[in-house]
């Protein structure tokens, strides 16, 4: 495209930005196979030629972000790409905590809910086990669970998952600040409001909104870039609050006490010792991740007892390096190949004991309703 054409397209797109249709996110067809309290377990529908591996894959996103970051847009969806490669893919949708979930404990989420998700996914495969992939806080939850209850975990993959919390990053310093009274905050708010957490994340790079605006103007001629940008912004502004009691334990036990490194953390009364993790483990860290710095995620591989373990360090940031087109072409095929190498010979296929509770069809919300809600159109969530 010539510079003149780019310039013209840029202005046309910038002027038409208000009328630009909302991005459709989370559109890969999936069924709800388990539902409990606010969370549900989704299973993506297999490709027409069927599943190629005996071991299913369970994706565990962060508690405070929507799951559809791993299923952002058609053609730019990790779930879609994994299904196309023949994996049987499950994902945890943590849902939106209600005011009563202020009492929900870290143990209930990490042992109870995540344990159930792992067992349900595992019983669909031929091995009674599942590969578990945790992203960000989802990775920390998966690590904690795997250290205590490894029975149904075939392998562990973690992307930018913090395990060491005493770094010099802003979040670590802030939570350890003597004037920050965690109890007062949880008593007042119940669930920790997502706005508060989003504010803290924005403090990590205070100039980010300006930088984003300049970047959008710069690339406004590129429709594909704009589609991706708005889908990502829709996700980035669609966060959920953190259940209060779980947050208290997370901050006190992990951020303040650095419980995983110092071996003081417990799950349902059992000590969480990283050296108890013996399953094949792949940890991915990112060089420009200012939310989970490398020094926070890297120690996992050093601490675990697995003989089959690997750390991959990649350029890029916390989100971009996971969902970019480059990641779809390089990172995810690598992870898929790693799972394939750790797949077992299919045994007698166990028929799913849990019937789908609901079928989830890709569907775009009616325009009027979408406007009233002023939310991104999430095909799966709306269909549910």
């Amino acid at each position: 495209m010539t510079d003149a054409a780019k310039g013209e397209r840029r202005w046309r797109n910038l002027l038409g930005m208000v009328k630009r249709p909302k991005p459709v996110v989370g559109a890969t067809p999936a069924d709800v196979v388990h539902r409990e309290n606010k969370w549900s377990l989704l299973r993506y529908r297999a490709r027409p030629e069927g599943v190629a591996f005996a071991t299913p894959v369970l994706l565990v996103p962060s508690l405070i972000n929507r799951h559809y970051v791993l299923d952002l847009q058609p053609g730019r969806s990790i779930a879609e790409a994994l299904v196309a490669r023949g994996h049987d893919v499950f994902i945890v949708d943590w849902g939106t905590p209600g005011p009563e979930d202020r009492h929900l404990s870290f143990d209930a989420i990490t042992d109870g809910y995540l344990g159930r998700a792992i067992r349900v996914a595992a019983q669909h495969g031929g091995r009674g086990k599942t590969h578990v992939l945790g992203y960000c806080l989802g990775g920390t939850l998966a690590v904690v669970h795997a250290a205590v209850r490894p029975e149904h975990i075939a392998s562990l993959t973690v992307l930018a998952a913090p395990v060491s919390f005493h770094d010099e990053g802003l979040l670590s310093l802030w939570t350890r600040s003597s004037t920050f009274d965690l109890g007062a905050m949880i008593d007042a708010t119940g669930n920790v409001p997502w706005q508060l957490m989003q504010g803290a994340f924005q403090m990590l790079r205070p100039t980010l909104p300006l930088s984003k605006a300049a970047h959008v103007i710069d690339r406004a001629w590129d429709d594909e870039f704009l589609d991706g940008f708005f889908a990502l912004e829709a996700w980035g502004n669609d966060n959920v609050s953190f259940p209060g009691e779980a947050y208290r334990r997370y901050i006190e036990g992990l951020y303040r006490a650095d419980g995983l490194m110092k071996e003081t953390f417990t799950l349902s009364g059992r000590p969480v010792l990283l050296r108890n993790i013996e399953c094949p483990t792949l940890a991915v860290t990112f060089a420009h991740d200012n939310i989970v710095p490398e020094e926070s995620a890297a120690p996992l591989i050093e601490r675990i007892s697995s003989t089959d373990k690997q750390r991959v360090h990649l350029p890029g940031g916390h989100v971009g390096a996971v969902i970019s087109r480059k990641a779809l072409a390089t990172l995810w095929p690598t992870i898929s190949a790693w799972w394939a190498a750790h797949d077992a010979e299919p045994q007698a296929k166990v028929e799913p004991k849990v019937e789908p509770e609901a079928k989830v069809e890709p569907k775009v919300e009616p325009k009027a309703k979408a406007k009233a809600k002023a939310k991104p159109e999430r095909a799966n969530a709306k269909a549910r």
Partner: protein
Amino acid sequence: MIGWDSWKKGFDVWENATAKYLEAWMRSPLVLGPGGALLTAAMRSKTAVDGAMDSWWSAVGLPTRRDQERALHALNQMQSRLIDLEETLAEIRAQQKQQAATKA
């Protein structure tokens, strides 16, 4: 285009330098300390106001918002315990089937 490209390059340099400066500033105890104190004070005020409202509400014999939250949470816990029991029963049934098949 050339003007925009030059501006963008200049902006990137400024943004990078400013972000580094602000990030260092945000990590300073001079910012974190008062920030934490301000947040804590606001939260304690909210708790005090909520507590006063709850006292008034419960004084007339009505369940407070906290009472309702506790009741709903107990229901959610019961749901999870029931699902636990279902899982245990399914496991026992599967074992029984396996034992019967082995005997046969």
